C-alpha cells in the first residue's frame, strides 16, 4: 500500500547519493523522534527514508588533542550523556540535548535532528549557538561548514541545500574559566516544548567576563544569537546592572507569537528572567572549574 523505501547506507557518500537522488521525497532518519510523529500525523509523507545511523561519522563523539569536540549529527542525548568527558566541558549543551522530550526520547533524539527539524523551540539549538558550534554538512557538491546559528531558516526550514546532510557539530576547545548553561521555561517540570529557551556560554577570568555568547530560542522564527546580550556581559563582573542590560537585550530581541504555548508578552518577559538565571549558572560552573 505504501510506496515508502527505507535505506540504511553504511557510508556518507551512499547516503548523500540516495538522499540527493530522491529529492524532496526523501527524509533523513536519525532518532526519528520528530520524523515519525510527523509521518503518523500525516504532515509528512516521505517516499524515501535514509537512515544515517550505520555511518560511523554520524554516531561517534571524538575529543581532539586540543580539547575540542566533534559530535556526530545522529548521536543520541543518552550517548552524549554517557560520554566520559563531554558533560564536564559542555554541561549546558549536554543538559539542553537531554531536555528534549522524555528519557525515552533522549535514548534516540539527536542534536542534528533537533537542529534540522527547524523548530524555533528546539532545546539543543540555543545551547549550540551559545557554544559557537560549527556544523559540517555534506552534499552532492562536497563538504562545507556553517555556523550553527546560520542553519535555521524559519519554522520547519533550514539553510541546507538540496541533498545536503548534516554530518557533525564541532565545538571549540575551551579556555580555562569557561562553562555554559541552558534553561528553558515550560509550564510543567518536563515533557513540554520550550516556551522560551536560553543558552549562555561564558569565559571568566579574575571575576570578569572575557567572552560570552547568548542563544535565545522559541521567541522568533529561528533561534537567535543575541549579540547585544553578550556585549552587555563582556567586560562586566556579572553585576546586577550588566545582567539587567543583557536581560533587556534578550527581551528586545524577541519577535514571538501568541500560540497555545505562550503569549508574546509572557515570552518577552521570561526571556529576560531566564537570561539572568542562565548566566548565573554558567558563571558558577565557570568559576568552579578554576
Amino acid at each position: 500500500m505504501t510506496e515508502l523505501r527505507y535505506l540504511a547506507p553504511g557510508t556518507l557518500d551512499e547516503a548523500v547519493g540516495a538522499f540527493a537522488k530522491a529529492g524532496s521525497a526523501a527524509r533523513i532518519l536519525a532518532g526519528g523522534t520528530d520524523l515519525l510523529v510527523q509521518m503518523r500525523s500525516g504532515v509528512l509523507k516521505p517516499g524515501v527514508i535514509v537512515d544515517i545511523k550505520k555511518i560511523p561519522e554520524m554516531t561517534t563523539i571524538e575529543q581532539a588533542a586540543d580539547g575540542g569536540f566533534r559530535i556526530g549529527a545522529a548521536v543520541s542525548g543518552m550517548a552524549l550523556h554517557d560520554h566520559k568527558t563531554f558533560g564536564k566541558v559542555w554541561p549546558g549543551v549536554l543538559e539542553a540535548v537531554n531536555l528534549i522530550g522524555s528519557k525515552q526520547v533522549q535514548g534516540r533524539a539527536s542534536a542534528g535532528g533537533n537542529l534540522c527539524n527547524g523548530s524555533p523551540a528546539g532545546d539543543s539549538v540555543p545551547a549550540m549557538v551559545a557554544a559557537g558550534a560549527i556544523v559540517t554538512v555534506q552534499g552532492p557538491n562536497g563538504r562545507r561548514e556553517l555556523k550553527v546559528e546560520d542553519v535555521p531558516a524559519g519554522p520547519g526550514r533550514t539553510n541546507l541545500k538540496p541533498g545536503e546532510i548534516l554530518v557533525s557539530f564541532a565545538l571549540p576547545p575551551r579556555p580555562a574559566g569557561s562553562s555554559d548553561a541552558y534553561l528553558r521555561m515550560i509550564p510543567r517540570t518536563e515533557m513540554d516544548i520550550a516556551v522560551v529557551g536560553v543558552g549562555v556560554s561564558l569565559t571568566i577570568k579574575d571575576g570578569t567576563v572575557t567572552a560570552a555568547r547568548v542563544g535565545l530560542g522559541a521567541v522568533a522564527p529561528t533561534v537567535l544569537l543575541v549579540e547585544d546580550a553578550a556585549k552587555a556581559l563582556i567586560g562586566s563582573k556579572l553585576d546586577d546592572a550588566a545582567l539587567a542590560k543583557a536581560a533587556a537585550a534578550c527581551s528586545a530581541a524577541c519577535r514571538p507569537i501568541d500560540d497555545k504555548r505562550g503569549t508574546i508578552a509572557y515570552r518577552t518577559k521570561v526571556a529576560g528572567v531566564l537570561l539572568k538565571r542562565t548566566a548565573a549558572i554558567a558563571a558558577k560552573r565557570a568559576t568552579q572549574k578554576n
Partner: protein
Amino acid sequence: MAKVHVTTTINGEPMEFLCEPNDTMLDALRGPLALTGSKEGCASGDCGACSITLDDRLVCSCLMLAVESEGHEIRTIEGMAQGDKLHPLQQKFLEMAALQCGICTSGMLMASDALLKRSPDPTEEEVRFWLAGNLCRCTGYDKIVRAVMDTAAEMRAQ
C-alpha cells in the same frame, strides 16, 4: 508494495516478521509479533506506554521504525519476568499497589528497570524526573515512586 522482512532479537529470542516500511516497532510488536504488552496511548512519544529497550537503551517503540530493529536487540515487558519468577520491580508494584488500571504499567516497569540499571541508588527526584515520560492517570505516581525506591533499596541490599 511488498512488505519488508525483518530479523531481530526480542527478549533474547531470534525472531522474524513482515511489516510495512512505515510501520513503527510498536505496530510490529502488537501486530505480527503478537506481543501486546507494550501499549499505544498516543503514538507520538508523549506517554511512554509503549516503552521498550533497544540495545539496552530505553526508547518509545512508537518512535522507531520496525525495520530499524534488524540486527538489534529488543526487550519488552514480556521479557521482564523469568518464567514464573517475577522481577523485583514487578513484585514490588503488586505489593505496594503501584498500579490500578494497568495500562501504563508495562511502560513504567520498563522505564524503572532502565533507571535502576543505570542508577541503583536514585533519589526521589531522580526517579520522578526519569519517569516523567511515563504518564499515569490513575495513581498520581505516589505508589509507583515508592515502589521503585523500595525495590532499589532491596536490590542494593542483595
